[in-house]
């Protein structure tokens, strides 16, 4: 039921009670009117009697005057009949007065009146025909006497009337009192009902208002008010409560979010610090890398230099080999010349054969060493490959510099190691080349010894021829070998040049890399700057979050 309906019912109730009270008043006023209606005719009868008695007295007096002088009989008769009419009327009126329920002294007075009236009436009928003036006058006076009696009765009747009026007055007063009390009752009832009704409305409203104040103060720990009536207030209460709930949820959400933001910002700050550290590490690594690159570059340069020197050595060797081949050719010529002297120098040849054998082994050794050089060249090639790979990796790692800078260090180390390997390899090559040179020196010495032996055993031709033939073969073979070696050398040189070219390429890549590293470094600086800005923003965010949280923490939640 809606509040309006309730209030309407209250109003109707009050109106109903008011109507009952009005009916009560009207009923009493009606009965007052009724008793008034009974008493008034009695008073009027008495007044009527009074008038008639006075008339009669007057008529008797007139009659006394009339009969004192000689009169027309008709006039006297008329007068007589008039008096008779008056007496008849009086008979009736007095009879009515007798009917009035008087008590006590008033009753006695009425009895006296009736008695006196009967006497006067009798005397009147007796005296009128005698035309006795004095007697008529006396009768008139006595009629005046009963006038006093009627007056007396009238006073009693008035008494009764006033008593009745007083009673009525009391009754009316009572009615008025009842009305006042009733009105007061109704007013109190109305006030009470209105109060209760209003309280029924205002109390929940006050509670809701109180809750609203609580909410305004930030205390969301409000209990839902129990309100069973299904009216507008219930809707309000429900709406208010769900608002509170929603608010609470919202606040909780905000708090959670705030906490999340705090955590996240903390994490970001942490991450930021980490990133900074990383960036610093990257910067550091970059500079190290730069330095390493420079080192690599210089190493590579050294290697290139070494390779160039080796190339030069190769060239020398080739030239020497060519020279040797020439020499071999010359030697072959000499051998051919010697073959002609073989016969003669067979014996010496024998000796020379030993030397040749030595030489052969020396050459074998040389051959082997050449293989080693070849291997070494391959090794250098491999190194160069690896370096190239490394450079590639380094560039990739450089690209990933953001994630980790450690890779660079490893790469740098690898590159360094490889550079060292390269250096070692190059040194080995250098050593080997030296060994070759030594061998060649030995070889030269052996050759010289051989020449001496050949000189000394020039005679041992047969053997020498054989030897020479052998040597011839050998030299041919050796020449072939040397040629081969020269070709190989050529090949090695080409490879070495290739290596150099690669090295240079690598160097340029490294330089590029170094430039990239600089870029990385710059980017890292920028990133650092950006991170600082981010840190500032985060601090600002934290402040905001703190403010938000402190704002939200105002709310006390269930």
């Amino acid at each position, binding site marked *: 039921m809606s509040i309006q309906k309730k209030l309407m019912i209250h109003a109707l109730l009050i109106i109903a009670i008011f109507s009952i009270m009005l009916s009560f008043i009207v009923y009493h006023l009606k009965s007052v009117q009724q008793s008034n209606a009974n008493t008034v005719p009695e008073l009027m009868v008495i007044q009527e009697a009074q008038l008639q008695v006075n008339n009669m007295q007057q008529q008797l007096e007139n009659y006394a005057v009339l009969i004192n002088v000689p009169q027309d009989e008709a006039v006297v008769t008329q007068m007589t009949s008039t008096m008779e009419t008056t007496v008849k009327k009086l008979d009736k009126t007095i009879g009515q007065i007798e009917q009035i329920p008087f008590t006590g002294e008033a009753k006695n007075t009425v009895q006296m009146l009736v*008695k006196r009236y009967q006497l006067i009436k009798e005397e009147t009928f007796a005296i009128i025909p005698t035309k006795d003036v004095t007697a008529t*006058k*006396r009768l008139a*006076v*006595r009629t*005046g006497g009963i006038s006093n009696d009627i007056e007396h009765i009238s006073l009693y009747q008035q*008494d009764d009337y*006033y008593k009745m009026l007083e009673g009525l007055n009391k009754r009316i007063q009572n009615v008025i009192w009842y*009305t006042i009390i009733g*009105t007061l009752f109704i007013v109190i009832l109305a006030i009470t009902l209105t109060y209760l009704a209003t309280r029924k409305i205002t109390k929940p409203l006050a509670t809701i208002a109180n809750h609203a104040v609580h909410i305004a103060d930030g205390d969301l720990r409000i209990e839902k008010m129990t309100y069973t009536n299904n009216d507008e207030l219930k809707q309000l209460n429900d709406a208010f409560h769900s608002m509170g709930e929603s608010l609470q949820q919202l606040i909780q959400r905000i708090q959670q979010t705030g906490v999340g933001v705090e955590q996240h910002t903390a994490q970001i700050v942490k991450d930021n610090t980490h990133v900074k550290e990383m960036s610093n590490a990257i910067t550091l690594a970059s500079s190290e890398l730069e330095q390493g690159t420079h080192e690599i570059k210089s190493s590579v340069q050294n290697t290139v230099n070494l390779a160039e020197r080796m190339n030069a050595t190769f060239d020398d060797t080739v030239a020497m080999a060519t020279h040797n081949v020439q020499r071999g050719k010359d030697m072959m010529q000499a051998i051919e010349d010697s073959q002609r002297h073989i016969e003669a120098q067979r014996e010496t040849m024998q000796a020379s054969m030993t030397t040749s054998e030595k030489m052969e082994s020396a050459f074998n050794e040389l051959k082997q060493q050449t293989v080693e050089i070849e291997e070494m060249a391959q090794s250098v090639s491999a190194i160069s490959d690896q370096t190239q790979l490394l450079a590639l990796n380094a560039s990739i790692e450089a690209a990933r510099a953001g994630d980790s800078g450690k890779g660079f260090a490893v790469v740098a180390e690898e590159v360094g190691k490889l550079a060292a390997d390269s250096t070692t390899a190059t040194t080995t090559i250098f050593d080997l080349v030296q060994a070759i040179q030594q061998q060649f020196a030995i070889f030269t010495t052996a050759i010289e010894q051989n020449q001496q032996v050949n000189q000394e055993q020039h005679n041992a031709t047969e053997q020498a021829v054989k030897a020479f033939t052998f040597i011839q073969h050998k030299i041919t073979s050796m020449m072939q070998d040397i040629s081969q070696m020269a070709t190989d050398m050529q090949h090695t040189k080409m490879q070495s040049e290739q290596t150099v070219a690669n090295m240079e390429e690598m160097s340029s890549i490294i330089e590029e890399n170094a430039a990239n590293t600089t870029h990385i470094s710059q980017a890292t600086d920028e990133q650092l700057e950006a991170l600082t800005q981010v840190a500032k923003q985060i601090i600002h965010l934290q402040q905001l979050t703190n403010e938000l949280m402190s704002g939200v923490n105002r709310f006390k939640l269930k």
Partner: protein
Amino acid sequence: MKKIGVLTLLITLLLTGCTSKESTTAKTVAERYHVGLMLSDMGLGDLSISDLAFDGLVRATEDFDIVFRYLDPQEVKDYEQGIEQLVKQKNDVIFVIGYMPQEALEKVAKKYPKQQFVIVDTVSDSPNISSITFDEEQGSYLAGALAATITQSNVIGFIGGEDVDVIHNFERGYIEGAKKVKPTIDVLTQYANTYTDEAKGTAIAKEMITSKADVLFAAAGMTGTGVLREAARAKAYAIGVDSDQYFLAEKAVVTSMMKNIDVAVYEYIRKDIEAPRSQMGQHITMGIQDNGVGLAPIRVIDPIAPVEQAIEKIKRAM
């Protein structure tokens, strides 16, 4: 707040409305001053003292809040019973008219010593009976003066009832009044020795008229009635007594020496209402100055006015 104010106003109006009872101007019978009247002799309609007393009470009724009851002697067994009946009716004062009920009154007065009684035209010694008498001499003086004024024979007559002091007072006043106007006047005096013998009155009157008396004053009750009627028959003037006796002999009665019992009764009641029981047991004599005695309206003679003026002059001179 406003509502409460209106409510209070309403309640106040209602309260004043029912408390301000309209004060009834008319008192109830019980609240009124009660007067009992015991008439004597013929009672009401005697055209004399009873009627005067009645008139006085009627006038008092008109002016004051009083209630009066009267009893005719014919209506009661005897005076004692009548007076006692009036006592029992709780009257503030009970008037008894004339000397006849005096004995009965004194008996009742003794029985009811707290009851206030007034006896009119005679004197009682009872402490609760007030006596009102009239200065007959003063009234008679005026009657004598009038008689002397209107006489042509210079002879006037006085007829007394019993040869008693009261009647002597009448005689003395009458002669003094007459002599005051006409010192040489001859006043005939005779006592009938009865109040009730109208024929004797007639005889005395006839005798006096024969003796050239042309104005007769009778203070002799019913005997006096004979005097008045004889004067009318003999075309002489007559002066009535006690009340206006004009109606007894309209051709003769010039005036009457009035005992204004009505005035006396009225005045006693007025004073008793003003100061209750202040007059109880007293003997009050009503004179000319109290309007207790005087002359009835002058009639019969012609012209009346000069006589009236003369009498008024004499009255003022008293």
